[in-house]
């Protein structure tokens, strides 16, 4: 496994100011995200997982500290540079899929593909996520699991270096959730993308190369798994 560092966080904090109240969502955090790894971020609700993920994905800016992608200092980047970073290197998968309701399965993926110069083939990606049948269906006509598959297809069609998944199984039933995790590992194997999975479900930690445990806005522990468990084998 390559040990190259893709994203580097040094003393990163994130503070939200809401009128009188300031919330320290993330306290001085250090973390390296490695190329090709599967990283699971675990922690209870409100512990700062999504905050961390959003910073890594260039959706938000650090309050202090340094955040870099390869040689690029993201904490100094302009809005346009952040947009380009998201477009070229990042794929997002959300709990609630966030598909475009007016576009069919195929078109949702196609839309993402138009963003980059050298996308994967939409047809192949959809086949890989197991959805070559219902390409003309609109999101509303698909089940939650199917929608999540499309949203994964939409994320990976751009050939992102990093796939960021925020509670990807949170809205799905047990079996479907497992098959989605399977798919994420499959993406990691086939395309070598780094996959970061945020979840409050401790059992899922077993499928990662490393597990980051968070509590109260801090990384409490980073655990390196000796081997990655198959999603089929884990229980919750």
């Amino acid at each position, binding site marked *: 496994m390559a040990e190259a560092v893709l994203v580097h966080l040094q003393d990163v904090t994130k503070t939200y100011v809401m009128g009188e109240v300031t919330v320290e969502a993330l306290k001085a955090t250090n973390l390296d995200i490695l190329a090709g790894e599967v990283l699971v971020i675990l922690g209870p609700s409100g512990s700062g997982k999504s905050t961390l993920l959003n910073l890594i*994905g260039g959706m938000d800016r650090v309050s202090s500290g340094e955040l870099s992608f390869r040689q690029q200092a993201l904490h100094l980047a302009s809005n346009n540079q952040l947009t380009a970073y*998201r477009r070229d290197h990042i794929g997002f998968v959300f709990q609630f899929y966030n598909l*475009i309701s*007016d*576009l069919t399965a195929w078109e*949702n993926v196609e*839309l993402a593909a*138009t963003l980059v110069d050298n996308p994967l083939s939409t047809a192949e990606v959809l086949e890989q996520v197991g959805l070559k049948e219902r390409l003309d269906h609109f999101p509303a006509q698909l089940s939650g699991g199917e929608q999540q598959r499309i949203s994964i297809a939409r994320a990976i069609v*751009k050939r992102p270096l990093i796939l960021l998944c925020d509670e990807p199984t949170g809205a799905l039933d047990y079996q479907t959730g497992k098959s989605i995790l399977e798919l994420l590992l499959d993406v990691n194997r086939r395309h070598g993308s780094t996959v970061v999975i945020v979840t409050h479900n401790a059992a899922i930690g077993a499928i990662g190369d490393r597990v980051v445990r968070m509590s109260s806005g801090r990384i409490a522990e980073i655990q390196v798994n000796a081997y990655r468990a198959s999603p089929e084998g884990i229980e919750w």
Partner: protein
Amino acid sequence: MYVLYRKLWRGIWSNKGQFFAMALVITIGISLYVAMSTTYSNLGYAQERFYDDNNFADHYFYVVRAPEGVGKQIAGIPGVEKVTARIQQDVAVIKEDGSRASARLTSYPLPLSGQVNSVALKQGRLFEAYPANGGAEALLDPAYLEANGLNLGEQVEIIAEGRQVPLTVVGTAIGPEFIYAIKDLSSMVPDPKTFGIFMIPLNQAQEVFNLPGQVNQILVVFAPGADIEAVVSQIEDLLSPYGNLASYPRKNQLSHSLLDSELTSGRIMAKFFPIIFLAIAASIQIILLRRMIRMQRSQIGIMKGLGVSNAAVLFHYCSYALAISAVGALTGSILGLLFSRSLNQLYATYFNLPNVEGFHFQIIMYSFILAASVGMAAGLSGSAPIVNINPAESMRAQPPGKSTQNILERFPFWWRRLSPLWKMSFRSVARNRMRTLVTVGGVVAAVSLLLISFFMNDAIDYMMKQYYQKEMLYHYQVRFDQPVLSSETLAISRLDGVNSVETFIEIPVKIHFKGRNVEDVVNGQAQGNQLKTPFDSEGNPMAIPEEGIILGEITARKLGAEVGDLITVETTFNRGAPMISELSVVSINRQLFGSVCYTSLSQANRLLHEADVITGCMLLVDPGRSAAIEAQLSEITGINSITSRQKEIDNITSLMGSSMLFVGIMIFFSLILGLAIIYNSIVMSYNERKKELASLLTLGFTHGEVSGLMLKDTLIQAVPGLIIGLPTGRWLAVFYISSVSTDMFTFPVIISPLSYVLSLLVGLGFILAGYWLATRGLSSLDMIEMSKYVD
């Protein structure tokens, strides 16, 4: 309940842009309603009161001359309530500076009170029949007095029977037949500098015109319930020995018919414009409420689950619409009253009518009722879906908007070539059918209003061009007191700087055809005349026939006569016996104002059994010499009037400012309407798709690309609206003109290409401005926030 109201206000505040956009549209609708209704009620009331107070005549009879006593005879006819016999005659006026004007010298038997078409004194005192220091006293219409800088006590000089007669001005007065004081239909607007109403006692008029004991007009007010047709023919019979020149009912009286058509068109506009604005405001409210209810479905479910009744929830949403209406009605009424004040003042410059003022509590009340009904209707139909919300069901995730195939997808060749972003836009527009309909309809309304506004401008332009650059090309038109030999114009053509003189004759006639008869003027043009040209209904110039007659369109319609028909022409000069001849209709001409029938000078002479008489001439002069020529013409006795084309144009242009103001206001209002429509449409679509837009940002689309998507949405709806708006506007213009056309006034709907272009440009302007206003906030779209929630 308190919580509900809190929620209402929060709802208003979070949608404040939309709230005010809709309130603004209602404000415009209500202010137009209040302003126009108030003004036209004021005008209507003032007209009615003035007519009543001064016994405005129901019918006019003109004779060559008749003994004063016929008045008494006619008063004896059953069905006749009031009669006044008088002398009225147009005379030339010599002003202090030597220049000419004309006056309608109108006389009144004394005492004045109770007479038909009596007058109301404005300044000074009434005339006396026999002033202590001799001479004659006159009242003038106030506009003439003011325009000519005259003062009470000064004298005006008229020419009557070839003599100069001084009249002492003792006051000013207005009368119900002179409310719109124009000389005849060929003058578009009042020109108080060159045309005035001079009022004198009957005995003085008899002396001035050398008609002792005689009159030439009989004015009648009928008793209620009289068989008018029978009474009129009885009076006509009685007057026939005295040379019946004309007999016409009130509706053909010049001032009355113009005032009435102004009222008619005003009343149409007072309904038409507000309805457009209010209907659009209501439509936006309906779709906005529906969206709010869809968004707040689960909250509504919770409230209903807690036992809040349907009615209470309905009331909550209706009160949102009612709040918009209340704001709109309040500001609209205030603005409307302000507008109506300046509209009233505007009318006061056109119409000599007292007491065009006041405000009507009733109209304000109606405006609130109107706004409230719009709010209620929009509120109820917008919130109707509430009733169907089931508390249990509403908690469940709401089915997202269903997208289906739209029309374009039936053409896969094109559809496949569209980028996903365009597909998104087309589907969103197709899915929100109701909103799309309202947006397209709103743009259509705004653009057609723009086109109508520009058309009003075109109309004025067209009138000026048609009239002054095509129909009449002379610099001066001179009319004589009475028919003269054409050689009389030699003196005029010898004047230094006069380049060309063309002669004509105008003969007042009655035209008979198949039992109908119409009064008109036959205009006989000398052969080779080029300074006055009739035009056909297609706008092509027509040649004057050597024999036969070109009938005016309106006269032809009234008679039911067509080309080739043989009509009977009876001359009605007020001197000499009437002459009767038959003429064939050669063609039909269209005149913007009133009607003129054309023939050759020689044919016209044959009507009079004359050979070489004329009543006027038209001149082309050296521009540098015009002042001198005007002065020299003024010295020639026998000239009744001198019309300067340039002065007429100047006078009209000076009055056009107010029309331009009106056009400007309409353009501004249409712009606001369009802006509000586009703004609301974008904000609604934006609020609904926030989440999707945020997800585009997370994918790596730029803010520019995302707001570009909103622009695509907007253009898909607005461009068809723009395009449909143009023919719709034209159609509305045709409809408007046809509904205000009268016997005396009709108008071709000619819209210049520039107006279409301007309407499109202004339309594009409000689309882009609305888009800019609505998407200003887009950069604050919070991707993170949006990615968190289901809905």
